[in-house]
């Protein structure tokens, strides 16, 4: 069966076929350049590079995930912008979006791998089950672990979309019954870009993929492999409620005066100070709002272990993993040890006094004896 080969034609051709004007492409180039804080003028360069670029073959693998990431990308508020990403790439395999099913779908993946060996990009959403050789998550009769290893072998780069693919996510939460791990623990010989978030921001996903297509390289990454343009600042640093934090004005509950006044949500568990993402600046739904603006603290969904790092509603400096029996036991233990040590000292004193008394008696007895 003849399958359509991936990567045919340039992005510009694909866009003009769909009636997207050069002007729109320039606007999108500028938009991407602005998002990633690239120098002025690179918008035009991006647009030109995009127009001339061959469409990037992308194989999108969905593992232990909830489809929230692809929902976030495809149902974004301004589809004319984010959907452009689908014009930049040739999405050769995506279980949710592709028309093909069964053997035809798998054949499309294999054909894309063959046609673009060493040049295709693998996008992964969802964590990888590794326990018992990964049998807890399979598609087309093969484990995710197996498919990932095979597909990534000849890839140019891997983009881990969402917190599950980046850090393990909810499937890796204790007790992690499937042995879920992030992509980085399976693939170690390829450039990996983590785009965490539950889900990630559509602009961040689109921007990262566009950067890869435009420049042919991966953007600057932080120590967790996240693109610095989007994950360089904490939510807290960019939060519009930050002045209240500095003034010591905190909401103590979700329905008190402070909450109504829009004060800082730190005390009700906001993880903004330790969470790196763009929510506070780009905001969601086309720049409408983000969780803190809607009155709820940040969960820290783009950070490793956010699901196991204590309650979403316990403040950052407080203890996690507390066993309520430990401190009373320490108190009782201290009291018993202290009393024991004091009693031992009393016993030693008593013994010493008795010994002294005995010695005195002995001395006087000897004296009496000699006098007699």
């Amino acid at each position, binding site marked *: 069966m003849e399958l359509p080969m991936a990567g045919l034609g340039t992005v510009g051709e694909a866009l003009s076929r769909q009636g997207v004007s050069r002007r729109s492409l320039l606007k999108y180039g500028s938009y991407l350049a602005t998002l990633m804080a690239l120098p002025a003028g690179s918008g035009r360069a991006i647009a030109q590079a995009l127009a001339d670029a061959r469409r990037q073959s992308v194989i999108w693998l969905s593992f232990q995930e909830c489809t929230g990431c692809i929902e976030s990308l495809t149902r974004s508020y301004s589809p004319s912008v984010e959907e452009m990403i689908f014009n930049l790439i040739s999405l050769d395999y995506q279980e949710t979006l592709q028309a093909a099913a069964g053997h035809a779908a798998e054949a499309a993946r294999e054909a894309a791998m063959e046609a673009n060996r060493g040049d295709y990009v693998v996008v992964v959403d969802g964590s990888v089950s590794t326990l018992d050789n990964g049998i807890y998550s399979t598609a087309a009769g093969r484990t995710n672990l197996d498919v990932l290893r095979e597909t990534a072998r000849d890839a140019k780069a891997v983009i881990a979309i969402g917190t599950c693919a980046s850090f393990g996510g909810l499937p890796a939460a204790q007790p992690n019954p499937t042995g879920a791990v992030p992509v980085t623990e399976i693939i170690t010989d390829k450039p990996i870009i983590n785009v965490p978030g539950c889900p990630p921001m559509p602009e961040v996903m689109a921007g990262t993929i566009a950067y890869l297509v435009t420049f042919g390289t991966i953007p600057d990454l932080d120590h967790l492999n996240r693109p610095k343009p989007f994950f360089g600042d904490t939510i807290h640093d960019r939060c519009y409620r930050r002045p209240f934090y500095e003034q010591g004005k905190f909401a103590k509950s979700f329905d008190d005066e402070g909450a109504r006044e829009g004060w800082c949500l730190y005390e009700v568990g906001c993880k903004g100070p330790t969470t790196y993402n763009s929510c506070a600046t780009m905001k969601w739904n086309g720049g409408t709002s983000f969780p803190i603006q809607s009155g709820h603290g940040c969960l820290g969904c783009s950070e490793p272990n956010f699901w196991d*790092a204590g309650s979403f509603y316990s403040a950052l400096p407080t203890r996690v*993993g507390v066993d309520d029996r430990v401190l009373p036991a*320490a108190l009782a233990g201290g009291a018993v040890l202290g009393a024991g040590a004091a009693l031992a000292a009393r016993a030693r004193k008593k013994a010493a006094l008795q010994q002294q008394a005995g010695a005195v008696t002995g001395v006087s007895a000897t004296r009496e004896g000699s006098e007699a």
Partner: protein
Amino acid sequence: MSMTLLEFARGPALNLSLAIFVLGVVFRLVWLAFLPRAVDRSVARGRAGTVLRSAIGGFVSHMWPAKEYRARTMFSTVTGYVFHFGLAIIILFYAQHILVIEDLTGLKWGGLPTGIITIVSVITLAALLAMLVRRLTNPVLKTISTFTDYWSWFVTTLPVATGLLAMSHMFARYETLLAVHILSVCLLLVSFPFGKLMHAFLVFATRFQTTYFYSRRGSHI
């Protein structure tokens, strides 16, 4: 994913060091309270009530140096008060610390703005540094200082310095700074019961004991 530094600090490190702190402090207090004491066989001068009043008076009067010593000890007395009050303000009135106290005891009260806490922290840190400089430059003090003196200073100063850094969000990521700050507090907690820092509890016992001892003999110090 493996545990992050902040998770380690907030979790096992803080929980364990709090347990060691509680166990150590209770152990020492109970031990001292029940140690055998020498019976004072002297005849008390004055009635018991008068002796007690005089002892408390002595306790209070020793909170400020006597006229004869004032010139020599004024610097360390004032600096000492500055950093002790500073520490109290930081620990009791920084909003984030109140959260920790509430988590531990269920008690809470209003905090001070971050700006005020920052100023107090800087003054406290300066006072602590001044105390170290005095210890290192005063020949007598330097001679009688031992490792525990420097260690007590170190574990007290470290949380102030790391706390200031965590507030400033400078030099490293906030989660790292917060973790380092919490770990420095853990170090303070585990050191506390087993060295000179126990004076926070024992100062009341020792000073009262001394003033009571002399008051009983009719010497009002």
